Structures are given as C-alpha cells and as structure tokens.
C-alpha cells in the first residue's frame, strides 16, 4: 500500500515536471508575445496542481497529516492567474509591438482598453442604477 502510494506520488511529480518544462519550452519556442502568453497558463495549472496534490499525499504518508493549506494555494492560483494574463494582454494591446489586428467589437462601443468615453459598463450594478435614477 505504502509502496503504491509512493509510486503514485512520484508519477504526479514527474507529470507536473513535464508540463512545467513544456510551458517553459513554449515560452522559448512560440514566436509572438500573445502566443507566449499561452505557455505559462499551462505550467501554472497542471504543473502546480500535480505538484501540490503530490505534496498533500506525501504529508499523509509521512504522518504529518493532510495539509489543507495547499488546497488554498491552488484556489488562489486559479483565481489570480486569469487576472495577470488579462493585464498582460491589455498591456500588449497598448505596446509598440501590437500590430492592430484585433477584430471590431460589432457593437456600438469599442474594446474597454481603447474606449475613451467615461460612461460605465452596461451590466450596471443595480444600486448604482437606482442612484442615477433618483
């Protein structure tokens, strides 16, 4: 039983390592900035995920108990990583490497990064909505 668990944890770590390495290799190999943004999202999901699961199971195995903090690490990574990626791509749209190839919005207003009007977004928060009306 112990032996099987050990094999399982090792397999998780190896898988995580392979995905982390692939992510870093992708950073090197892909050619433009937006493409390169895709590589680290991979390393941060599977790579970190499997390493953390391995670490939690290891805690169980050596008798220090299942460490719940690592569940939180995963939750926080899943919540914060998209925001980083969003900001990186917004910065890219304003940088001098940007080639102006994004499509039109198809609605009356431009993409939020380029929009110069000061009106709020349309899914208005209800309380603000009533504030304007009254």
């Amino acid at each position, binding site marked *: 039983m112990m032996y099987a668990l050990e094999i399982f944890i090792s397999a998780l770590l190896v898988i995580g390592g392979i995905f982390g390495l692939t992510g870093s290799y992708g950073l090197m190999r892909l050619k433009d900035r*937006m493409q390169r943004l*895709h590589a680290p999202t991979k390393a941060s999901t599977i790579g970190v995920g499997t390493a953390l699961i391995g670490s939690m199971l290891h805690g169980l195995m050596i008798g220090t*108990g299942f460490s719940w*903090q690592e569940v939180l690490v995963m939750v926080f990574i*899943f919540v914060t990583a998209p925001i980083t990626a969003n900001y990186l791509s917004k910065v890219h749209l304003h940088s001098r490497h940007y080639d102006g190839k994004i499509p*039109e919005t*198809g609605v009356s207003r431009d993409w939020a990064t380029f929009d110069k009007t000061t009106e709020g*977004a349309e*899914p208005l*928060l209800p309380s603000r909505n009533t504030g304007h009306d009254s």
Partner: protein
Amino acid sequence: MLRRLYPHPYLSLFLVLTWFLLVNQWKIGSLVMAIFLATAIPLITAPYWPTSPKLNSLRALLSYVLLVLWDVILANITVAKIVLFMPQDKIRTNWVRVPIDLKSPEAIAMLAGTITMTPGTVTADMSACGRVLLIHSLHAPDPDAIRDDIKSRYETRLKRIFE
C-alpha cells in the same frame, strides 16, 4: 439586521472556511478568529461590492468547477502537443470575438477566468459595454467553432447558476 451585519453570506462562509484551511486544525480559538474575520472583511469591503450576486444552485456551481478542472486537464494535453510537435508555420493563431448574453458582473468574471484557465485561450479584453469578449486563441483554424464551444459549454451553465 442579520442581512446588514452579513451583506455577503457566501463570502462570510468562504472566509470561515479559508481561515480553517489556513490554520489547519480545529480549535475554538480559530473559530472565534474566523467569525471575527467573516464579520469584519465583508463589512469593510461592502462599499466596493454593493450588490450581492444571485446564486441559484450551489450544486450546479460545484459541478461547473469539476467540469472546468476536467477541461483544463484535456486542454493542457492538447496545448502541450501543439507546443512540442506542431511546426511553427502551421500554428494558426487567431483573435476570437465572443458575444455574451450574461448580465451579472460576477458571471462575466467567472466566464473570462474560465476561458483563461483552459490553456489555448486567453481573455484579452471586453467591449466597453460589457457585451463582447475578446479572446486570443493559440491554435484556431476555425474561430467560430471556439466561439460556439465557449457559449454552449460554459456560458449556458453560468447563466443557469447566476441568473
């Protein structure tokens, strides 16, 4: 009264859970601290988050999370294959425009986060009116297929959960 003390009940519950996960043990002292945090943090941050989101079904939300985790694993393998084996000139990188029907800001944020976390697509921007998302896709020979996939797989589920 209770509503005024706890403007975001789910946030309060989540804070209690987070605190217990952080201290990693069951003690009365931790419970007192957790309840203190669950009361203070929502009250302090309430001005920035005036409305509480509607949550129709907690079970649907959990099954959504599991679905996304599964998709993340599958998409990881696909993207790893593209990065490792696909010749560079064959990679068709494309911008995809996704019109969205969701209205609640929380649901839109969830959708944008989901799209970014599934490797191969990144949410780059939103139209100023909040009705279209701009998505960058690593390999999209057919951008319309990606748009339809996002709408049918994630958006309909989020609509059921939040609206």
